[in-house]
């Protein structure tokens, strides 16, 4: 099992193998697997987008592509606006 583990660590580019416990190596390999899957998905999306764009007659503007996601709510601004909308406190505390 030691040789198998070492081989897996080398393939995944994990350093300091001999100082890791099997559990730590497992965590690192799982993280490596997740990163690998994310990169594969990114490559697929890129290839798909490229293929899609190469079929369109007019390229959409780059800004439009980059702003594809809905903008996140700005909670700080919303809170500020909510406070501004509150009736001002009168001097006599009422």
């Amino acid at each position: 099992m030691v040789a198998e583990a070492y081989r897996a660590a080398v393939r995944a580019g994990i350093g300091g193998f001999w100082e890791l416990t099997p559990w730590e190596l497992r965590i690192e390999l799982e993280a490596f697997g997740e990163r690998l899957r994310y990169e594969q998905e990114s490559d697929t999306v890129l290839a798909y987008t490229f293929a899609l764009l190469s079929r369109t007659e007019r390229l959409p503007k780059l800004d439009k592509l980059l702003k594809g996601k809905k903008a996140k709510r700005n909670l700080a601004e919303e809170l500020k606006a909510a406070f501004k909308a509150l009736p001002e406190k009168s001097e006599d505390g009422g």
Partner: protein
Amino acid sequence: MTGNPYRGEVTLDVGGETVTLRFTWDAIARLRQALGEDYDTVITQAFNTQDVESIAHVVSIGSVDDLDPAAVMAASPPVIPTINACLDAIHRAYYGPDGPPEALDENPRKARAATWWRRLTARLFGPVSADSGS
């Protein structure tokens, strides 16, 4: 049982000094070298029979400060707490801070370790050949 459980550490009192046990791949390789291919069986037998010399050897290999087995023997730590510390350290090394799952197979450590290991490596890199010389 203190020490960082995520790092697989367990502390043990040996002759009034606190020794940290941690079974890294280096320690596992050295156990295998010292006790043979079936090192886990040998360790289990040593623990069952309370074989002090073998226990001292395991403590020596597992200690982060590379204690001398003779020094462990000379300090003569209490056997049961020492065995428990070694087992906890081995369990933490293989299964992390929560230790082994409760329901284990007949040969718990070997079976569980082999299962998750094969599943993980097969998922990441494809099946590993059986003659890879573990």
